[in-house]
C-alpha cells in the first residue's frame, strides 16, 4: 500500500517526520482527510489535533494553527508550535487553561479577551490530545 511522508515543522525544529497511511487535519473550512496521491493543496489549519493513521494505529499531534501543504507523496505541516501526544506537558496545559478561564471571567477589553480565548483553546487542545479524547 502506498504511504505518505509527513513532516511537521516548527521554528524550533521538526516535530514529526514519518511515513503514514492517512492524515486527518482540521482546516479553516472543515476537516480534511489526505490519502496518498492527493492533489497539491494548501490550506490553513485551526488549533486542533492532527490524526496520523499508520498500520491500523492512530497517532495524534496537537498543532496551534499554521497551514498544511499537500503534494501527492508528501505532506508538510508548518505551524508555530506542535506537540506529539506523548510530549505534552499536561500539568502546564491545565494550569494555562485555568489562567485563561480566570481571565475570561474577569472584565477585559476585546484584545485581552481574544488572547485569553485563544490560549484557552490551545490548552484544551493539548489536554484533549494528551488524553486521547478526540
Amino acid at each position: 500500500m502506498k504511504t505518505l511522508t509527513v513532516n511537521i515543522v516548527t521554528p524550533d525544529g521538526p516535530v514529526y517526520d514519518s511515513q503514514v497511511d492517512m492524515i486527518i487535519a482540521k482546516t479553516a473550512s472543515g476537516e480534511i482527510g489526505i490519502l496518498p496521491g492527493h492533489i497539491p493543496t494548501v490550506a490553513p489549519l485551526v488549533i486542533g489535533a492532527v490524526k496520523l493513521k499508520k498500520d491500523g494505529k492512530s497517532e495524534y499531534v496537537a498543532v496551534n494553527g499554521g497551514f498544511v501543504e499537500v503534494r501527492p507523496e508528501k505532506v508538510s505541516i508548518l505551524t508555530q508550535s506542535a506537540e506529539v501526544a506523548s510530549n505534552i506537558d499536561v500539568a502546564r496545559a491545565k494550569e494555562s487553561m485555568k489562567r485563561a478561564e480566570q481571565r475570561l471571567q474577569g472584565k477585559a477589553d476585546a484584545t485581552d479577551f481574544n488572547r485569553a480565548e485563544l490560549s484557552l483553546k490551545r490548552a484544551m487542545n493539548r489536554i484533549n490530545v494528551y488524553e486521547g479524547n478526540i
Partner: protein
Amino acid sequence: MASLRDIKGKITSTKKTSQITKAMQMVSASKLNRAEENAKAYVPYMTKIQEVVGAIATGTSDGAHPMLTSRPVKKTAYLVITADRGLAGAYNSNIIRAASNAIAERHSSKDEYVIFAIGRMGRDFFVKRGSNVIGDVIGLPDQPAFSDIKEIARRAVGMFTDGTYDELYMYYNHFVSAISSEVTEKKVLPLTDIAVEKGTTASYEFDPSAEAILEVLLPQYAESLIFGALLDGKASEHAMRMSAMKSATDNATDLIGNLTLVYNRARQAAITQEITEIVGGAAALE
C-alpha cells in the same frame, strides 16, 4: 620601581581575571554550539514556508495583499536585536550604531519612527535617547524558543497591518563564522522581495482561497523572519563574546608574562643589593 609585593599582587589578580575570562570563553563556546544547532533546526521550517509563500504570492497575479505592497511611508518601525549583557566585544555597539545612524539619516523628527527592542542594551540606549520604544523583550534565554518572542513578533506584524507604520526594518548581527559577523539591515515588511525558485511553483489548489491562505501565511512568515534573525543574532552574540573573552585571556597572559619579567628583575636586583651589602659589611670589618 614598584615593590616586589606590589608586583606579586598584580600578577595574582591578573591571573584570577584570566581564569574568569577563560571560563567565560568556554561557556560561550558551548553556547555557540547550541545556538548553531538551533539555527539549523529552524532552516527546514524557513525553506518550506518560503517555498509556499513564493508559490502562492506569485500564483495570485493580482497580489494585492496589503503585506505585499509598498505604500507611502509616513512612519517607520525599527526592530533592533541586541544582547542583554555586555562583554561581547563590539557586538552591541555595532548594531546600535548602525541602527541609530540609519535613523538619524532618514528621519528628522522623533515622530517619524518607532522602535521595537529585543535585548536590554538596545532598549536602554533608545530609551535614554528619548526615542519612542513601543515594545521590548528582555531577559531572553540563551537558546530562545519561538514562544519567547511570539508576542512581540505578532505585535510588530499586527501594527503594520493596522497601519500604525508603513515599513518595518530589522537590525541584527548576521552570523558568518565563529570569528566574523556583520551587522545586517533587513526589510521585513512590506514583503517585497519574496524569492521564487523556478520549478517549485506547483499549481496548488487553495482551500478555501488563495487570499484566505495569504491572510494566515504572510503574518506567520513575517514572524518567522523575526525569529530567524533572533537566532542568527544569538549565534553571533555567543561567537563575539567567545572571541572577546579569548582576546581578554590572551592579553592577560601577555600581561602576566611581562609582570613576571619585571618581578624577577626586581627580585634579582634585591638579591644583588643584599650580597653587595654583606660583602661591603664584611670588608668594613677586616
